[in-house]
């Protein structure tokens, strides 16, 4: 199996398992799911990018989109606390 395929499959497996685990634990906040998925994405990418730097560069737009999403959830939470 190719490196990219292994990366996609391992990431999919990781977030499905962690999603199920969080669901069983009764977590209802979507921000927590999002943060966990983002951390898993960055960890798995770092593991793969040690073999292939170009993959890390290619997935940079996805990382930026993820980080914007994370910034949005953090901003929302701050506003919620302030209000």
């Amino acid at each position: 199996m190719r490196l990219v395929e292994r990366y996609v499959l391992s990431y999919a497996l990781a977030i499905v398992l962690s999603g199920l685990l969080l669901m069983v634990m009764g977590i209802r906040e979507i921000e927590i799911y999002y943060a966990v998925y983002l951390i898993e994405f960055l960890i798995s990418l770092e593991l793969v990018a040690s073999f292939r730097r170009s993959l890390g560069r290619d997935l940079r737009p996805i990382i930026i989109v993820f980080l914007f999403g994370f910034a949005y959830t953090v901003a929302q939470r701050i506003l919620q606390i302030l209000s």
Partner: protein
Amino acid sequence: MQRTAPTRLGAVTCPSCGARRILAEMLYCDQCGKRIPDSLTNKLGHLESVELRGDPHLTTTAERVAATPPSRQSSGVATSSARVAGLGDSTVKSQAGTIARGQEMRHASLDAPPSILGGRQRILGASLVAFGVLIAVASTVIGAANLSGLGLASFLIGLLLVYLHSRPSFGTELVEASLLSSLANVERILRELGPRTKAIYLKTVDRLDVPMVFLPLEENPAPPSGLNLSGEDRLLVIDSGDSHRTGLLLEAPGASLLALMEKELDLNFIDLGNEDFLNAIRSGMVESLEVAADVKAAFTQDGVSFRIRDGPLRNMSRSIARLVPNVASRLGCPICSVAICAAVKAIKRDLILEGATHQAGVHSVTLRFSGGSTDEAS
């Protein structure tokens, strides 16, 4: 140079008497008794192997493929076959026997790399995105907030699949097709100049040096430990005072691949010791470039040996070994050459290529230190 075009698929004419040959294993013409050039017998071999597969798209001529309107089931195959067949025609006209048309068609049509992320990847990704959105909406409507986490997971996986699919990727057959003509030219140079000497991979001094290979024109059983050709920028190096320094100076076939591997791994082999070298070469060739399934290297007192198991590029390796045997055995195919170049950079010594063979999907490379063993050198 005699140029002979195929008269029909599976048959070429004898360049001497014009008799039609159809069997690959017959090396001599039964009409005139002259030897059939290897390039033509190789071509027959490829065409016959294609015919045995029984695929009608592969056993038709380029003209017929181009003239036949593509059917619904075969349109993709017919289009790619016709396109590559056209290229093959021009190749046959310009360089008889370097790359057979049948072989190009076989690679274009049959040898697509096995991949789970194939043509359906975009559909799968879009479906997962849609499924994720639906789940998220449904979980909001029915008030099951914890379901939205799974919806988000599905959405993210789908997004990743769609994004990765949108990046261009190229099949192994394209790599092979773009490489073979260049190697065929080198093969012709080796064949016509006819040196029967062993190639010497020259050590690199600087981190940015391109690995070079020197092929002496005169028999040279014991070349000096350091040739010192770093200042040379000529293809044909002639030194009337020193026959050791007269020969062909070529960029190693795997030099560019090594540069790519170093870029992907973010390291330079010139900085590595023997232990790190073994790990790095394996990571680079198997994981980064994916040009091999396994790499084993062994350091001895006299030199280095590699055993490289073919990966996705096994068809390319097979074609190189068959079509450009001089390059493959005396300079090393690009895959062997990557390993040799990396070794030269890591060891920082000239290495003589004793032999490079490709059999049953395995490359075996034996290298000897130029000027004697490690002990003698130190």
